[in-house]
């Protein structure tokens, strides 16, 4: 299956992102619970893009291991303010936006691989991956 890019421009795109991710996960044959996990991660991380960087994009990338094991990779990219202290941002309950502060650390718990790259003044990229059970 091909990669798909979803523009994140306004709050409505958060809904689009989670629905698209769910249907891609469903088409790849992910279990219902994993579809819910991936849709929830998409909702959290797309909201961060809109909330902190105003806009960005999501790339949903079906992928496969050498042994033919399937996975879905989601890449959230923005050219927003960046995150000065990634360790702090990754801890439960940390928020600069009066949120609950569970978006980043919670999302990490919902996937198998989680990577965050950020540079102040340049932007943020969060890459997550979940293997098909």
């Amino acid at each position, binding site marked *: 299956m091909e990669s798909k890019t979803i523009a994140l421009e306004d*709050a409505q795109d958060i809904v689009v992102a989670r629905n698209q991710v769910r249907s891609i996960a469903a088409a790849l044959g992910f279990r219902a619970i994993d579809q819910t996990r991936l849709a929830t991660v998409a909702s959290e991380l797309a909201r961060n893009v809109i909330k902190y960087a105003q806009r960005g994009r999501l790339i949903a990338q079906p992928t496969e291991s050498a042994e033919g094991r399937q996975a879905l990779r989601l890449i959230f990219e923005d050219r927003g303010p960046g995150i000065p202290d990634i360790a702090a941002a990754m801890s439960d309950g940390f928020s600069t936006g009066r949120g609950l502060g569970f978006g980043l650390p919670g999302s990490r718990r919902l996937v198998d691989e989680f990577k965050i790259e950020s540079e102040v003044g340049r932007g943020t990229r969060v890459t997550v991956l979940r293997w098909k059970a």
Partner: protein
Amino acid sequence: MSARIPILKVGRVLIVPIQVDMDDQTAIQLQERILTELERTGARGVLIDISLLEMVDSFIGRMLSDIAAMSRIMDARTVVVGMQPAVAITLVELGLELKGVETVLNVDEGFKLLRDEFDGADEEYAYRGLGAIGKQDNRT
């Protein structure tokens, strides 16, 4: 974009069946509308049916906590019914406790819980009703 979510009043309970995937704005508006209805009707319970919601993220989770907290201030009890198992598991993994939110499996149990809450008042009401009938009986 998304359809307006109905708020139904049955006795002293507001029933809110969430049947659409809410964007953030719709969620905020729903919260405000529930509070307005509580004030207007003096309802004592709020039953939020989320059985059709396929995902609850931190935003919707916080909305549910906020509704529960605010209804408590207005002397009403909020019960969330029908959370799908996959949604419940995901919420726990996210780390959200839905503080102060009571959850039950279905609408019947939700009503049972709320009826318990009003029992005293219900009995009082029934008692007065019976008293009136008794008087009538005496006259005939």
